[in-house]
């Protein structure tokens, strides 16, 4: 019994264990559901999965199923981010426990019953439990917002290197707080539209409506909802990475106000999309610029820090370009997240801006189905980039060292970037090759996409298998993580008088 209790405590009560469970759940879902589309479906693996698991895939419910799948995965990702936030942002221990417990039950309910409903026979009790799960996640968000309240005296910064107001209010905390509030409101934005399901609102995938000039308020609300939720997930991981790198100094002081303003502007832009659609887009673009500039500050700071730390470790006071680059690339696990943010500009933001600029000239000349591929491609890539950043942070948390750390890091970076670049090229193929000749291009880009993804999934599977076998060891890594559950990346400076409890 003790065997199970100890492991249960690790998996469901420690931050590191909770993150591990959520990553494992997402991996499991990705591994199974990934066989239902793309090349794996073509190779007949879909049929095997469907038959083995007893899935019921009626063609008419496809869109609904996909929406449930997106929610199932997104909720687990949000839970991971909540675990990170409750661990690295100062708050009372009991608040952290309640928030983590609520979000955990919430995402597990949403994931298990949501997928159970959508893929295994439309049991409406499962649908109810899916909604219950979403409600719990929403409630955990309210608790998180309360816990993050930035104007509490005990959370004022004492180290003036961190962005703060004149009164010492921690601007990074304000950013986390604004992010949480925006996520809560934006979740409601989708939930209100969803609550009219069958009463004027019908299931749809946003990408199918791109060329329809008039959309219903419900459709606009759902489109706004899905865009901002993914944006906020990206913002959250950027802030978390900032804490991981102990982001501070002048760049931090520039970045945090930009981040806060960006979150507020984007939120306003999305929330007004129903009545003021034409101007909403412009507002969203403006907000995005603020957030991207904030991320740029983090990248500059982070890369400078990586170079500096490595050179100091080597005892080198001054270094040329080559040595500096070598120092930057020394630790792929730490170089990776910031690189992925830069890489995102080529595969997500760059594509988005190019599309916006050349929409009528190029993309509206293509048929709808091609434009749709570019759109779905670029947000799948964004979601994938966020996932790789989370994995790199997790690899750091679990303390991968030496060659394993390097191999894991570089395979994750190179594998995912090959996959994302291939997906981007595939989606833009008509820029380079005529439709009649596109088959070899499609074949090769898909091959590279699969190779890249396979590399990422194999190392992820290895990591998870290691953690799984470790759970059977008496004194495994899990034991150490249970004893020392704190994430390394938390601000070291706490006002005198604030207890360790307040920090964790």
């Amino acid at each position, binding site marked *: 019994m003790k065997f199970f209790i100890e492991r249960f405590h690790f998996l469901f009560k420690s931050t590191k264990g909770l993150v591990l469970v959520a990553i494992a759940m997402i991996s499991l879902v990705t591994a199974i559901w990934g066989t239902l*589309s793309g090349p794996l*479906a*073509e190779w007949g693996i879909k049929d095997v999965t469907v038959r083995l698991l007893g899935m019921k895939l*009626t*063609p*008419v419910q*496809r*869109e609904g199923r996909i929406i449930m799948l997106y929610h199932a995965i997104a909720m687990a990702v949000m839970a991971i981010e909540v675990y990170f936030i409750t661990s690295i942002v100062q708050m009372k221990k009991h608040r952290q426990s309640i928030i983590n417990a609520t979000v955990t039950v919430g995402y597990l309910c949403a994931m298990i019953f949501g997928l159970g409903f959508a893929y295994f026979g439309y049991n409406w009790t499962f649908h109810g439990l899916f909604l219950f799960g979403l409600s719990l996640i929403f409630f955990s968000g309210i608790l998180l917002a309360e816990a993050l309240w930035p104007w509490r005296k005990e959370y004022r910064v004492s180290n003036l290197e961190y962005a703060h107001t004149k009164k010492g209010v921690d601007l990074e905390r304000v950013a986390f707080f604004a992010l949480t509030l925006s996520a809560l409101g934006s979740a409601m934005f989708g939930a209100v539209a969803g609550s009219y399901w069958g009463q004027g609102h*019908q*299931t749809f995938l946003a990408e*199918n409506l791109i*060329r*329809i*000039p*008039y959309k219903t308020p419900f459709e606009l609300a759902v489109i706004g909802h899905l865009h901002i939720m993914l944006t906020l997930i990206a913002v959250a991981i950027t802030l978390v990475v900032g804490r991981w790198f102990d982001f501070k100094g002048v760049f931090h002081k520039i970045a945090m106000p930009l981040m806060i303003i960006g979150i507020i502007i984007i939120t306003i832009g999305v929330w007004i999309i129903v009545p003021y659609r034409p101007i909403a887009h412009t507002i969203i673009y403006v907000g995005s610029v603020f957030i991207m500039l904030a991320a740029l500050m983090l990248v500059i700071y982070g890369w400078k820090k990586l170079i500096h730390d490595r050179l100091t470790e080597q005892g080198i006071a001054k270094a040329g370009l080559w040595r500096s680059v070598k120092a930057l690339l020394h630790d792929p696990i730490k170089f990776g997240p910031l690189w992925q943010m830069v890489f995102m500009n080529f595969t997500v933001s760059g594509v988005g801006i190019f599309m916006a600029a050349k*929409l*009528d000239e190029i993309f*509206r*000349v*293509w*048929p*709808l*189905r091609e434009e749709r591929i570019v759109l779905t491609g670029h947000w799948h890539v964004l979601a994938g980039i966020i996932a790789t950043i989370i994995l790199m942070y997790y690899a750091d948390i679990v303390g991968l060292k030496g060659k394993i750390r390097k191999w894991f890091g570089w395979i994750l970076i190179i594998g995912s970037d090959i996959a994302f670049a291939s997906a981007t090229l595939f989606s833009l193929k008509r820029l*380079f*090759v*005529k*439709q*009649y*000749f596109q*088959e*070899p*291009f499609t*074949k*090769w*880009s898909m*091959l*590279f996409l699969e190779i890249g993804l396979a590399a990422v999934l194999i190392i992820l599977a290895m990591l998870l298998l290691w953690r799984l076998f470790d759970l059977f060891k008496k004194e495994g890594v899990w034991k150490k993580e249970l004893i020392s559950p704190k994430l390394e990346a938390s601000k070291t400076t706490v006002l005198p008088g604030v207890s360790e409890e307040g920090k964790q």
Partner: protein
Amino acid sequence: MRKRMFFILVILLMLMLNQSCEQSNFPLHLEIPYIETGVDYNEWALIPAGEFYSGQQNNLGKIDYDYEIMITDVTNEQYAKYLNEALKKGTVKIENNKVIGYYPGERFDGHKHEQQIKAGYWIYVPLDEPGVRLKFNGEGFTVDKGFENHPVTMITWFGANAYCEFYGWDLPSEMEWEKAARGTDTRTYPWGDEINEHLANYNRSNKLIRKLFGLDSGITTPVGFFNGRKYKGFQTKNAQSPYGLYDMAGNVWQWTRDDYPDMSDRFMRGGSWANYDYNLRIWARNSSRPDYYAINVGFRCVRKASQKNEVN
């Protein structure tokens, strides 16, 4: 080790570029074996007036007139015949290796992303593009050998509309198309709710069809191919719609006629050989500007129930 991996990666990239750029070796015109399906592509099916279920959500729709629709897509042979007749009558002409014809233009609402369709000459079909199965020999049009009974492709909406109008017919509206494909129940595909490679020409059946024609890439099948016959070992199932139409799912997307306000795109239905199964669901739509042409886009016509079949 690192160097070796880098080397392998570079080789793979070069291979990809090389393969992708091999288009210059590709022949402009192909010859393939002719496959007789036994389906008469000059036939029409009567669709009676009445209610039917429309769209994914099964909304009740109604068409209060009888109409007829071609049981197959318009073939290369039919389109070549039309071009020859139209050339004689002077309703089409050839300029810069393109067949063009006059279109009277349409209302422009000035909406964002809307393309203005002015009165004038618009492209029907390009003649120098890969994938076109029609050849112009200076006097008239012929069809690449083996493609006679394949659906005509690389036709713009203008070209499709002109064909139907030439004979006094019309392109189907989206509703007419949907009712003809679905009948009066709520099925997903014209033949029922299941799909596999024996029922339609789509992404999944590509391998079998390539083998049949001895080609490296996906291709159209002759109209009415999926009728239960066996072709060189490839057993098909009868995939007719409730009204006896063929190829209402897969093979080629089909242009429809509706001109909606505030947009210039025309919609296409049915999915094609290049698409996954979900694009073949009866309610799935694709759209493009009316001057768009592609190797997987064709059309069929409708006419009033009282009209005589003048093409026979």
